[in-house]
């Protein structure tokens, strides 16, 4: 197309594009969206959201402060999150109300979506509800040492869906709350003290009274062993390999490691000094006389 033809067609092209604009009624659409009323509503919504967020922020800060002093971190965290989400939901509902958006249709759709989501997020919901039960039961708190199945570790964090442990070999373990509800959980540090059960097998030629005296003296000399409850000694049985003895000594939780090692080392040292032998599996064989 040469320049002369293009110039000649220009008025026709302009007429076509003007027709397209008329077809879309663009002037009316812009007029509908950007009028005084809608601008006022937008400002109202923005103000409501701003004030609402500030209000929620103040309440959450207050609850954080109060719960930090009065509640454990898990309960406090849960309360803060609940208040926070409830506040956001209220702000959202208010925003829709100001914008004259009918929520009934939206809620209906949300209900259907909720059912679908519920099926999809069944495990997460189960974990969340289990978390609420765990929180209510107060089985453990952050910093406690717990054993779940074969895993033992320090409770690192307690969250809505799972509990995180740090094992003693410094591994990170995530345990879903649902598992914690279903399985046996041992909280090792729930009480301020623990009893160490020391089981020993000594040879049959051992003077049991002497062994008892040495064991109780060893316990009495260990600064980590509590004087009360008193150490407990018992002859458990005459076993297949020797006399089975039991010594129960109580330690305060922080002293556990040191006192436990000290007890075993001292028992070995004192038994060796007294000539008391530990028994090991033995078998007596009689030659058959033909």
């Amino acid at each position, binding site marked *: 197309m040469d320049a002369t033809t293009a110039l000649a067609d220009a008025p026709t092209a302009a007429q076509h594009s003007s027709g397209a604009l008329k077809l879309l009624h663009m002037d009316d659409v812009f007029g509908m969206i950007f009028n005084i009323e809608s601008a006022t509503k937008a400002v109202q919504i923005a103000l409501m959201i701003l004030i609402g967020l500030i209000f929620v922020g103040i309440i959450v800060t207050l609850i954080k402060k109060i719960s930090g002093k*009065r*509640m*454990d971190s898990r*309960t406090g965290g849960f309360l803060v999150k609940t208040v926070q989400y409830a506040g956001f939901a209220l702000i959202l509902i208010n925003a829709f109300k100001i914008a004259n958006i009918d929520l009934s249709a939206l809620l209906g759709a949300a209900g259907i979506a909720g059912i679908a989501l519920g099926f999809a997020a069944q495990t997460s919901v189960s974990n969340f509800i289990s978390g609420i039960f765990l929180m209510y039961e*107060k089985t453990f708190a952050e910093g406690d040492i717990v054993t779940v199945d074969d895993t033992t570790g320090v409770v690192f964090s307690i969250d809505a869906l799972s509990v995180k442990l740090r094992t003693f070999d410094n591994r990170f373990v995530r345990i879903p709350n649902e598992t914690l509800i279903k399985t046996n959980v041992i909280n090792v540090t729930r*009480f*301020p*003290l623990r009893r160490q059960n020391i089981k020993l097998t000594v040879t049959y030629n051992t003077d049991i009274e002497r062994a008892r005296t*040495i064991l109780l*003296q*060893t316990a*009495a*000399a260990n*600064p*980590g*062993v*509590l*004087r*009360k*409850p008193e150490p407990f000694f018992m002859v458990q049985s005459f076993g297949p390999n020797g006399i089975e003895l039991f010594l129960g000594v*109580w330690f*305060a939780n922080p*002293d556990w490691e040191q006192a436990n090692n000290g007890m075993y080392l001292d028992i070995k040292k*004192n038994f060796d000094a007294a000539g008391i032998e530990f028994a090991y599996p033995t078998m007596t064989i009689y030659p058959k006389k033909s």
Partner: protein
Amino acid sequence: MWRQYDLPTSEGTRIHRAGKTVLYVAVEVAGEGEVLAAMVSYAEDSGLASRRKPKVPISVPPLDSPTWSRYFMGTSSTYEIVPGYPQMPVCIKLREPFFLPPAADLRGWIFSHVEARIVVGGSTIASYPLARPFKTLYGIPEAGIVCRHDEADFLASDEPVIDTMHEDPGLVAHPVRLRNTSPDPVLVNELCIYGEQLSILGNGTRMQSERLLFMFSGSGVRMSLEGQTELPAGWTQIARPRVSGEERFIVRSIELFRAMTRM
């Protein structure tokens, strides 16, 4: 023993004795400053050890031994040894327990061991118990308190304890009052003391605390200070309480509330 000392820069290891316990202090030069090394030893070792006197004198471990604790002195050239109560409560087991009849009001004395604190420039850098620090439980295993264990005789007397009772400078005397408000006789076999509420009053080598009131009731036993009285002539306050009675009361109340509600 309870006073300020210059660093033992030219005399080897300095020995501070408190009864059967010995506190060793030595000094090492570290660059432009000095390092104070301290350790404690207790005469009564384990029950398995021989009671005979050792033929050779007890030797102090070399300064590079882990038995010593070290503290950089900075510019300070002095240290002070001051008495203090242990951080944890002290549970004093009475050597001769007795029953306190209903409505009884008995006054007497008990003793407990203090700790020797090494203070440099106003800050405590180390604290050593002056008796081997055994522990015990006060209460029941699921809700008791782990305490420092101590043993003492109960001296049923309203009169001040005489000087000979204070032979061991590591002991502090506690005037006590025992009241039984329950309708039944109670066995008094141990008394638990919260040292952080108490001061240490000194007169020469003697040390004592304020009078303590132990109230035995149907719900248990409660320790409190029996009012603050003026210091007797010649006595001075050598250690202040770490927390006030009111503060302690609030903390205890919150602990009790949390124990009851598990919140």
